[in-house]
């Protein structure tokens, strides 16, 4: 039986054209679900959050997973994108033109974030490892602090009452764009450079890889999509403040990256989905709804002593989960492996050799 399943899976995974089919089905569903209310509003909302988290995770995986740097600045780029997009739709663009100009605002947010990504890339020429983590952290804190000190954009109070312009089709569109761009980047000439930087930066310099250029590109692509995710996020949450984009937000994305596994787009998608859905499933109301079939004698005490407290305890469970993943499952769901549909045909052979860990690759990358 399992052999049959296995061979069935092998056949399925070999049919690359199915990817296009799924893509089209996805787009159709993304339009149909909100239009005909196929799923309830809450599930639609969770789906949009899953999409935004996939964008964040895949883009952070480019720097943290493929390039082997340790960036903590992702929430900062997200904040920049969110503020740019929100300011554009709230204060600059005419209200009448909103639904059509919304993508423009999101795009602008991404571009501004990308420019800042270039700035963060500069110190990464000289500094690696722990110190780069500190620099990116400082960048995040500075972004937060600057936003807090500009009164025009609401200071510490943030921007309330943003129009809800993020829709399921747009989220799906940007997820597809993110996966497509990052995948093509990773398997391009520059992608090889990115991997070589992770394995050994000095050696790749010697092999005439233009490491500066590669780093510029990687940081730019990564922060661009973080900005996009920020713009979508702002117009979904409808309220942003500097507090939304603090170190905890970055930690969330890090958890998703490492849960899914480094250097794997398929893993990032799985990690982001699993983490977001799990976090939603642990909500007291969801758990109560799922267990409502239990007899009242069992349900009531359970509800009183366990379920109603989950709101706080789920925030305890998640970091614990991260630590346990790191201790017992350090490669995550798909660490350094890739879903075959994302690997170009010409790389199918080479992929296995390329992505094999060379015995503590991160240590080698530290140059010691």
């Amino acid at each position, binding site marked *: 039986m399992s052999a049959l399943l296995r061979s069935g899976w092998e056949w399925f995974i070999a049919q690359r054209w199915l990817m296009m089919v799924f893509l089209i089905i996805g787009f159709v569903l993304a339009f149909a679900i909100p239009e005909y209310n196929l799923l309830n509003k809450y599930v639609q909302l969770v789906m949009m959050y899953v999409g935004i988290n996939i964008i964040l995770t895949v883009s952070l995986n480019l720097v943290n997973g493929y390039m082997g740097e340790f960036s903590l600045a992702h929430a900062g780029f997200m904040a920049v994108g969110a503020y740019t997009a929100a300011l554009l739709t709230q204060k600059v663009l005419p209200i009448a033109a909103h639904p059509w100009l919304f993508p423009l605002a999101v795009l602008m947010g991404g571009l501004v974030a990308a420019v800042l990504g270039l700035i963060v890339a500069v110190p990464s020429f000289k*500094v690696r490892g722990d*110190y780069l983590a500190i620099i990116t952290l400082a960048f995040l804190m500075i972004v937060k602090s600057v936003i807090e000190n500009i009164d025009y954009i609401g200071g510490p109070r943030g921007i309330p009452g943003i129009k809800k312009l993020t829709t399921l089709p747009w989220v799906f569109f940007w997820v597809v764009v993110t996966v497509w761009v990052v995948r093509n980047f990773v398997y391009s000439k520059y992608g090889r450079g990115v991997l070589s930087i992770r394995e050994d930066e000095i050696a790749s310099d010697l092999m005439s890889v233009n490491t500066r250029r590669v780093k510029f590109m990687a940081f730019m692509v990564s922060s661009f999509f973080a900005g996009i995710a920020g713009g979508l996020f702002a117009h979904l949450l409808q309220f942003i403040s500097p507090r939304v984009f603090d170190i905890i937000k970055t*930690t969330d994305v890090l958890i998703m990256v490492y849960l899914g596994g480094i250097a794997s787009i398929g893993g990032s998608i799985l990690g982001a989905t699993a983490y977001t859905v799990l976090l939603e499933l642990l909500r007291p109301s969801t758990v109560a709804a799922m267990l409502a079939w239990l007899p009242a004698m069992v349900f009531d005490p359970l509800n009183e002593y366990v379920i109603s407290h989950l709101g706080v305890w789920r925030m305890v469970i998640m970091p614990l989960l991260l630590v346990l993943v*790191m201790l017992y499952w350090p490669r995550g769901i798909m660490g350094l492996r890739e879903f075959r549909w994302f690997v170009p045909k010409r790389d199918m052979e080479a992929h296995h050799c390329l992505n094999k860990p060379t015995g503590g690759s991160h240590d080698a990358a530290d140059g010691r």
Partner: protein
Amino acid sequence: MSESIVYWLQQTLNALQLGSIYALIALGYTMVYGILTMINFAHGDVFMVGAFFCFIAAVYLGLPFLPTLLLTMAGAALLGVLIERLAYKPLRNAPRVSAIITALGLGLFLENFTLALAPYPKHIPALLENVTWDLGGVSVSSLQIIIICLSLGLMFLLDYVVHRTPVGMAMRAISWDKTFVPLMGVPVDLIISVTFAIGAGLAGAAGTMYALAYPVIDPYMGIMVGWKAFISAVVGGIGNIRGAMIGAFILGGVEIMVTAFFPSTYRDFVAFSLLLLLIVIRPYGILGKPRTQKV
């Protein structure tokens, strides 16, 4: 004395108080980095838990100041060793990023666990009788003096332990080389645990003093103070114990002066800009030595 000198003296005193608290925490960061070349991002939260231990000892057990301080230090030290044994030790040979992530996760865990147990900010009772003297316009409180003196005392004690005792010698040896030092009969695991215990104990002491100086504590207080202490350690040259102390007083001074002359919301901005500037110009800190990169 003229107005401005009084003002400066007052601010210097405040800076010393803040700096000494930062220094106690920064020492934990720098010791762990020195010995394991790993940033213990959960350290700021050990400091926070220390403040909560202080709350428990002072309110539920009703202890006076000195037993509270000792109990807090012991509790924090235990927590530090526990974290090291359960979370960091299995990862000692793993990629370094795993250890950083684990530390971040542990910090978040400590914060949210404390939040789940203590949802509202807690108020610490005054454990010490606070007398304020007026020295020519500069108001000096006994609490400030105690905090500064106690911190300096602990720092000198640590400096003595590290530079003059066999345990300290073993610590320095391990930070120098982890391959051959164990062959000389140095119990590496024990020494690493001792390092964590000392670092966490100092953070616990800092937690007590912070709680006395700023008596409202909450589960997220460790994040910012922890990062600031970490900046201090980097400014002084991470891995260098005297550097961490100097860095902490510099950062405390800068922060107090920024708040004295600019709106207080600029404080974090200046602190982190300072860090950024320093890493780009002098990445190994004030007292740190540049590490040459070996291929």
